[in-house]
């Protein structure tokens, strides 16, 4: 998604109000943006707390401030700056966070972002974008940029199955029809789930929905999804995020408040405890049951 991100940002950079701040990241990726923006592209150095507060002040003065760093260095390192300087004042800073979930794999847990949107969505007016596909980048940036309030954009790697065509971007998208309940996948895992579930027949698989904008209170599931959920009473949520504060928990509350009864519920999420060994994103997903086999098993559980 990073190349697509750079292309889209270059496209937006003609707006003189736009300022891009990076926490010393972007080598061999953001050079075209740097060249396009000149003095409005600022490498803040290895100082994420300062970067976020500077962005808040730029936003206060009417500029469109975008920050960019590896996800945990944004939401975890600079949380108080996001909370106090950005959100308390309702400022429209856009926080671009590279490497959502286990994307940094064997680089280790210091680089993983497994509680990011759960934490940030506790803050007032925060919107979290979790684009599922590379094709989503244009709409993601446009929608985030149009928000008057703050936004967190969790970037990952598009996982569209071969031969498929990504439907037009929307906060909720149905990727596959199915009769055996509903599976909701957050962000790029939707592509992985798509590749698994398309091998099932219609009757034995759940309908697959990708969600890319949170919280669900601000972007509730569409009626097509809720109608099917009311009928089938089976729900699975798949996300590369810990259970606490995740979409799985949010959906539980949402269905209860909506008066929808569930007979079966499965929540596939990142492990709440880091393992003692490290590995790739594929390895770490497998350890949490977020791999294709785990997704297939969840689908079978819903159908059984």
């Amino acid at each position, binding site marked *: 998604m990073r190349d697509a991100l750079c292309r889209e940002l270059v496209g937006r950079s003609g707006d003189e109000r736009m300022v891009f701040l990076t926490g010393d990241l972007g080598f061999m990726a953001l050079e075209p943006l740097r060249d396009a923006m000149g003095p409005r592209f600022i490498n803040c*150095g290895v100082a994420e707390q*300062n970067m976020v*507060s*500077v962005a808040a*002040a*730029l936003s206060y*003065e009417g*500029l469109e401030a975008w920050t960019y760093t590896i996800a945990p260095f944004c939401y975890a390192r600079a949380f108080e700056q996001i909370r*106090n300087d950005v959100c*308390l004042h309702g400022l429209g800073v856009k926080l671009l966070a590279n490497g959502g979930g286990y994307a940094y794999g064997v680089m280790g847990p210091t680089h993983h972002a497994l509680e990011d949107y759960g934490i940030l969505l506790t803050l007032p007016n925060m919107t979290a974008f979790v684009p599922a596909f590379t094709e989503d980048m244009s709409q993601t940036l446009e929608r985030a940029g149009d928000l008057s309030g703050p936004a967190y954009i969790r970037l990952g790697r598009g996982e569209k199955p071969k031969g498929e065509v990504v439907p037009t971007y929307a906060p909720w998208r149905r990727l596959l029809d199915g009769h055996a309940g509903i599976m909701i996948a957050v962000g790029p895992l939707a592509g992985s789930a798509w590749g698994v579930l398309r091998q099932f027949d219609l009757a034995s698989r759940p309908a697959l929905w990708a969600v890319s904008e949170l919280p669900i209170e601000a972007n509730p599931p569409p009626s097509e999804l809720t109608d099917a959920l009311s009928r089938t009473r089976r729900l699975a949520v798949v996300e590369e995020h810990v259970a606490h504060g995740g979409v799985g928990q949010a959906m539980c509350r949402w269905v209860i408040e909506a008066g929808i009864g569930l007979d079966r519920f499965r929540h596939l999420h990142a492990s709440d405890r880091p393992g003692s060994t490290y590995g790739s994103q594929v390895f770490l997903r497998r350890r949490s049951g977020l791999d294709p086999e785990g997704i297939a098993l969840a689908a079978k559980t819903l159908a059984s």
Partner: protein
Amino acid sequence: MPTASVLVAGGAAYIMPLSVASLNKARCRLIDMHYSAKVGHIGGNLSCLDAMMLIHHEYLGTNDRFILSKGHSAGALYVTLWSLGRLTDNDLDQFHQDDTLLAGHPPAKGIPDIRFATGSLGHGLSLAAGLALAARLQGASRRVFCLTSDGEWQEGSTLEAAIFSAHHRFNNLTILVDHNHLQGFGSTDAVASMNPLHERLAGLDFEIRVCDGHDLGSIRAALAPDRHRPLLVILNTIKGRGVPHFANTMESHYLPLTAEQYAGAMAQFEIESRHSPARVEEYAGAMAGSETDQ
């Protein structure tokens, strides 16, 4: 005193010479406000009030910005705005009350002269740097002032902001340090010393000046902007300045005034108001000499 046209960039909304009498009136109102609300943090308010009053009365133009990074001195800021007619007596009477805008730390919204809710130390200098950067990008001539505490220079984020500001040579940025030598649970020397502060920060590309933070002439002399880089003014101050048996004590950081301390402070400021500025400054110097030995 330099003329406003020399000192002020971007207009002059409040510009008026600050007299010692006005300053003492503000001190009395500050003391009265805290005493009525039965709250502490008086020491750090009194140590920075002089500079805050001076900047707001003589330097801060319509387009300029002031950030109170040491948010626990919100009372001094409220009283300064009151002295300019930007807040009323009724407003100040709401200090620390329920349903108030005048909280113990500056509010996020509701008082136009206060741009950011501060209180957690280590945020203000980054915000000020962002305002300075915005002015540069927008081609605006506004000047940005940021008042920090001395203990706040132990915050990593303050140093991040200092490095950033020096690197970008924000010559529209003036950083003030209320150097009263006392922090939350001890002296700055005893807790995590950055002293002498002007020597420790000398490695950064700032114009560093040291002045007597209770001498208006000394502060004025230090505030002339540098053409090429950020200006950092270390204000040598006394925590709880002017309150007998309270100044320069740890108690002045947290505790509300007793009736005796309140009466003593009001009497002291009354005496200072009736004497010439030279006499007052002589008094302040003597007081500083006697109390820093404690």
